């Protein structure tokens, strides 16, 4: 089934209430027209539906997403897919600050640039950025992978835990306790898989791996569990 909502004639609240009423196994395609930068579109969806936002969206787009495949045919404001649990969010334009903040799972793809604090405190989400990312990205990132085809701003990976960052372009500065590490065969495989899922192409061998030097948090080398205080 397919439904169309036009934000010229309805409200974000009405759309979100409808989406929240879907059964957890519901399928279908939802078109959202004239977003015009509205905040909170498709927040808190928990169903394997497809949602197409036809234009620029505002803050918190597809926040807390579970299962849904959300595509934004435009730019997004702050905190797209923040706290995403699963599913996929694809931004065709650029993203403002805090893209994918504290996301637990799923895949966030941004075709253009993402500004500062991309992947801040990410907890298992994968993020692929076609362009560059701004300063203080992946700050305190705990788990998940951040792949950047362009450059990274200052303070990359400050206070990193166990998330891993791959940057193809220039890194303008690493944050405290972030370090460049050798790119392994396993890294190249993972980059290749993520690029394929994101529909972007680049040579995995061109990326630089950035990970935690593990001097800023309590790390028990005998335990597979990360001890995050």
């Amino acid at each position: 089934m397919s439904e169309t909502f036009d934000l010229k004639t309805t409200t974000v609240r009405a759309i979100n209430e409808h989406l929240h009423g879907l059964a957890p196994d519901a399928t279908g395609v939802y078109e959202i027209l004239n977003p015009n930068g509205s905040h909170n579109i498709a927040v808190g969806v928990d169903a394997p539906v497809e949602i197409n936002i036809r234009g620029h969206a505002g803050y918190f787009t597809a926040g807390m997403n579970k299962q849904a495949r959300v595509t934004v045919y435009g730019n997004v404001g702050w905190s797209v897919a923040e706290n995403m649990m699963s599913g996929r969010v694809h931004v065709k334009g650029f993203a403002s600050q805090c893209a994918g903040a504290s996301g637990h799972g799923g895949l966030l793809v941004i075709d253009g640039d993402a500004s500062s604090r991309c992947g801040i405190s990410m907890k298992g989400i994968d993020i692929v950025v076609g362009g560059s990312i701004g300063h203080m990205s992946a700050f305190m990132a705990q788990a998940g992978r951040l792949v950047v085809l362009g450059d990274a701003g200052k303070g990359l990976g400050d206070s990193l835990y166990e998330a891993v960052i791959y940057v193809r372009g220039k890194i303008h500065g690493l944050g405290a306790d972030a370090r460049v590490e050798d790119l392994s065969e396993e890294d190249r495989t993972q980059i290749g898989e993520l690029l394929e899922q994101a529909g972007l192409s680049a040579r995995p061998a061109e990326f630089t791996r950035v990970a935690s030097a593990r001097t800023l948090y309590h790390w028990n080398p005998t335990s597979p569990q990360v001890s995050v205080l």
Partner: protein
Amino acid sequence: MCGIVGLFIKNKTMRDQLGALATPMFVCMGDRGPDSGGLAVFNEPTPESAQRWRINVFARNREYPWEPLIHGLRQTHPATDIVASSNHAILMTDQAPEIVARWLGEYDPMLIVLSTGRVMDLYKDTGHPRELAERYHFTDLRGTHCVGHTRMATESAVTPAHSHPFVAGNDFCLVHNGSLSNHNSLRRLLERRGIQFETDNDTEAVCRFLQWRMREGDTIEESLARGFEELDGFYTLLMGTPERLVLVRDAFACKPGIIADTPDYVAIGSEFRTLAHLPRIHEANLFEPVPEKIYSWTIA
């Protein structure tokens, strides 16, 4: 929180639409700043504007009797015109602003001179930006560019004087989204140099600091470079001069901003939704200003 809007008209034939295009931007950002608002408008410079002063005056009384004021003022300064609406008036005169300000102070000490200059007008007051836009007929305004602000106060009192834009000197205004930690030390630095303040607001300190640097001979770029060193806190700043609209964000860039550049205009807002109504916005080059870069547009 606060909201910032700016509009710079590139296509001269659109200068009479400045207010019509900027008003929905201003009203929309009332969501981010509902307690007060203000708009500075730069009129097109003309040979006549180079000869006359514009003095913007604010009265607390929404039905201020401007008729007796202008009658009295013309006794001593006959070549003075007035455009008044509600509690705001623009006096246009060939007399120096200091002389007119002194006369106004003696006529009615409760009147406040909002701004002085050759081309800039300034409207600001407490209340929702929607009310201000209606009261002052913002949709009718014309000009080359404008600088607007909607305020949600976090730092000092909500009064007309604490509303943005702030001004210093002639034809210079500044609006600010953010907060500063060291504005009192800036204030002391400036007060030691004889610079007087009207409020305890942090933004006023930035405005007077930059204008002091420019008066000392710095370009606006040089004064902002010094600002990057001296200002401690968060800021997105939008400034207007008769020729230019200038935007900067601090190194942290926590306070939002988006720019839409088109062949006809440049529009600046805290959020995209405040620009969404603008003509051909979907063809605009949209981008976020990066930290500590000076963005400037100059009238042709």
